[in-house]
């Protein structure tokens, strides 16, 4: 049985969402964090449209638990999980029993 699910949801990002407050992600975020860490980062393509989890909030972005985050343009809503977020999809399917696992996911 193949069970492919378009699970666009929480945390998915596209480069086009870089102005969405928290979601300043992808290349810019990677470079910023790498710069902070003192890591020499080679140039990378900036045209990817796949989601880029993680990244760096833009300077001046304000996040408060009580009032939500304010993006650079002054909007004040927290970004909520949505099935319309876009981004690449995660797909999970049954593996052939003969296929050896490369990793395990247990409790952590």
């Amino acid at each position, binding site marked *: 049985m193949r069970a492919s699910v378009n699970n666009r949801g929480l945390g998915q*990002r596209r480069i086009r969402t870089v102005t969405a407050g928290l979601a300043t992600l992808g290349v810019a975020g990677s470079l910023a*964090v790498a710069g902070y860490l003192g890591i020499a980062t080679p140039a990378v393509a900036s045209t990817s449209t796949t989601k880029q989890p993680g990244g760096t*909030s833009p300077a001046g972005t304000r996040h408060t638990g009580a009032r939500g985050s304010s993006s650079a343009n002054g909007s004040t809503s927290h970004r909520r999980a949505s099935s319309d977020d876009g981004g690449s999809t*995660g*797909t*999970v399917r049954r593996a052939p029993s003969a296929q050896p696992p*490369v990793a395990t996911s*247990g409790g952590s």
Partner: protein
Amino acid sequence: MPLVETLPIGPGVAQWPVWTTTARVVTTDPSATELARCLVEEELAAVDLAASRFRDDSEVVRIAATGGGLVHVSPLLAELVAVALQAAADTDGAVDPTLGSQLSALGYGRTFDEIAGGSAGRASVTRHRQPSWRDVVLDGSVLSVPNGVILDLGATAKAWAADRCANLVAQRLGTGALVALGGDIAVAGTAPAEGWTILVQDGPAEPASLVTLEDAGGLATSSTLGRSWTHWNRRMHHILDPVTCRPAPEVWRTVSVAAASCLAANTLTTAAVVRGTGAPRLLRDRGVPARLVGSDGSVTTLNGWPEP
């Protein structure tokens, strides 16, 4: 022993202990594995210095000592806090990063190896109104944490780190990459032809599910079995219900989710454990493939997770 430690370490695989669990890096290009390990180790060291509750020189510990004032934080910690606040908002507070003090009071104030090796202490949990994630303010690089709060970013920082590392390895080394940090797995780059095969199982005697991830994304498992200890003769586990500040009732002993990122997956698995009986509805509404193992060992799958 975590199951991951029983897997073979062949070409294209690096594995080492970190954060009282196991890091495992798999690259589709075996020649990239060692460099990938170096990259991952650097990233994890930076995250540890920013967010560990268990070292006096970390930023979160130094911030806790400021007594609630405004503090300039590193870009990395700002990102980790922002991610944690987002997770809290996305789960209506089920995943709350302000429970570090409560975890410490319940005995989880040291690394889990230290807890397992001795007494968990006898401090009691205060029951007055606790600050919550809503009381944390992050304004750019300026952070304010309520007095008495020690941030516990464990629920999101490890998953974020897995995503970050997998993407970094894939982008910089041009290889398909899987980064597993305990139960948190992120994949990036071009997957192997057969996909990334992952054994989802919370111990040798637990029900198992063998699945593959085919493209970039993540898979996370949260458990009440692994990080548990005894405190005043009561069994504790590390996932607290922010409402009670006690370990969440063990409706589920293991919850696994596949999502577009490990962070998204871990946020939902943690929230599911906290929500208890409300977990299936939460996960169904989010549309993510999920697998829940009940306290009686029964298995529930949702949203296309392969049936057992």
